[in-house]
């Protein structure tokens, strides 16, 4: 690896000044993308800012409103072992836990997965469907932004110089609400999504879907929040007509590339198929709660 300065600040302010000190400075969370890219010479930061000692960056807290605050550098393994998070947000956790191997799960984080800005990032559609919000800190102070506003194109984010994602906030989870995530890969483990789909929904007292959010990965330059796909589910009980409308809305949102993982036609078709399957899983989980 090329030479760089390593700092491990123990406060938000120190981390912000270290990040702002060099235009090429990079945040180090789990390193499972950054260190690979640095070894390959694809990124050459002058400074690497290890944020894992910043208060709040690692750990899971229950928020006062009943939601969760998740440190952006918390590893996937820690998310999966939490006492209540996998029950309340199974889709978010299963998406994060699909990334890489057991070894990668020991380090890889939601913040890193989001800010690496791969269109195929598994945890991002899970977070978007969950309507998660990023808590961003930087030279101008603290701000919040929905997860779907962070990725702007492959490898690029909307974060300003000196800013980093400190935490994710997940909203409170009512009863009879759940989520799910599925990805298609040609094997069972250790692969990158050809298509990923996340669905989060809540049922009303009448058993009909009162709220639904659908997000797709690997079918566009960024992970997508597909408003019409969520709208297609609201007011129904997942009958074939609403599933067909979901399928069509998911396909209509796709703008994928042709590559070795899948063609445009294949990815587009699979986006609809996965959206149906994920909605069915999320619905069954919501009914069971």
């Amino acid at each position, binding site marked *: 690896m090329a030479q760089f300065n390593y700092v*491990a600040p123990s406060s938000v302010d120190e981390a912000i000044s270290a990040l702002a000190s060099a235009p090429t400075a990079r945040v180090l969370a789990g390193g499972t993308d950054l260190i690979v890219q640095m070894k390959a010479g694809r990124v050459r930061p002058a400074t690497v800012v290890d944020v894992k000692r910043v208060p709040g960056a690692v750990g899971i807290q229950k928020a006062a409103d009943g939601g969760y605050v998740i440190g952006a550098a918390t590893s996937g393994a820690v998310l999966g072992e939490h006492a209540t998070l996998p029950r309340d947000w199974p889709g978010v956790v299963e998406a994060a836990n699909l990334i890489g191997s057991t070894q990668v799960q*020991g*380090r890889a984080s939601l913040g890193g997965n989001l800010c690496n800005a791969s269109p195929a990032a598994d945890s991002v559609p899970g977070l978007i469907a969950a309507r998660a919000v990023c808590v961003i800190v930087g030279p101008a102070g603290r701000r919040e932004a929905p997860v779907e506003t962070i990725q702007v194109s492959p490898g690029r984010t909307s974060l300003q110089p000196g800013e980093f994602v400190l935490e994710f906030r997940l909203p409170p989870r009512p009863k009879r609400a759940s989520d799910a995530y599925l990805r298609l890969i040609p094997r069972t*483990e250790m692969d990158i999504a050809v298509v990923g789909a996340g669905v989060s929904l809540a049922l009303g007292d009448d058993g009909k879907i009162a709220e639904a959010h659908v997000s797709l990965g690997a079918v566009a330059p960024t992970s997508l929040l597909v408003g019409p796909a969520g709208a297609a589910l609201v007011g129904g009980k997942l009958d074939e007509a609403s599933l067909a409308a979901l399928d069509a809305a998911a396909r209509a949102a796709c703008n994928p590339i042709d590559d070795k993982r899948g063609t445009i036609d294949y990815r587009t078709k699979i986006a609809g198929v996965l959206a149906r399957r994920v909605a069915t899983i999320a619905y069954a989980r919501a009914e069971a709660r």
Partner: protein
Amino acid sequence: MKLHVSTTVNGDAAEFLTDPGTTLLDALRDELGLTGSKEGCGSGDCGACSVIVDGRLVCSCLMLAAEAEGKRIETIEGLARHGELHPIQQKFLEHAALQCGFCTPGLIVASKALLDANPDPTEEEARYWLAGNLCRCTGYDKVIRAVLDAAAELRQERRVA
């Protein structure tokens, strides 16, 4: 810029100086002389460099040595005690769960992390847990048999103790 790092390696305090760009794997091998952990791919795909940091299985090739400050590290060298092989090592021998041996330290460390977390894994759980450890010799079947046999022996040892 040289950084001073204080860690615990296999139960003993260990200190070393490192460049920021040195991985934990390179520090273990080149600074501390612990050459059991191997570099296969260097990108987190093969698991040959697996070590346990603060109880968590990680690829030491994807961790900076500087990040190890204050951490507790377990490597393959820490498994055998007083010249006696750990049951997982013994079972790898008995089941011939290796041929060239390059992936073996990583597989054994990953298996130890599995059995620390889950003393009675199913075959499927063991196969998923070890999916990040690549072996081009064995076809994995003997590895899985060795791990499940070691798990049974460790459970037996615990009952006797």
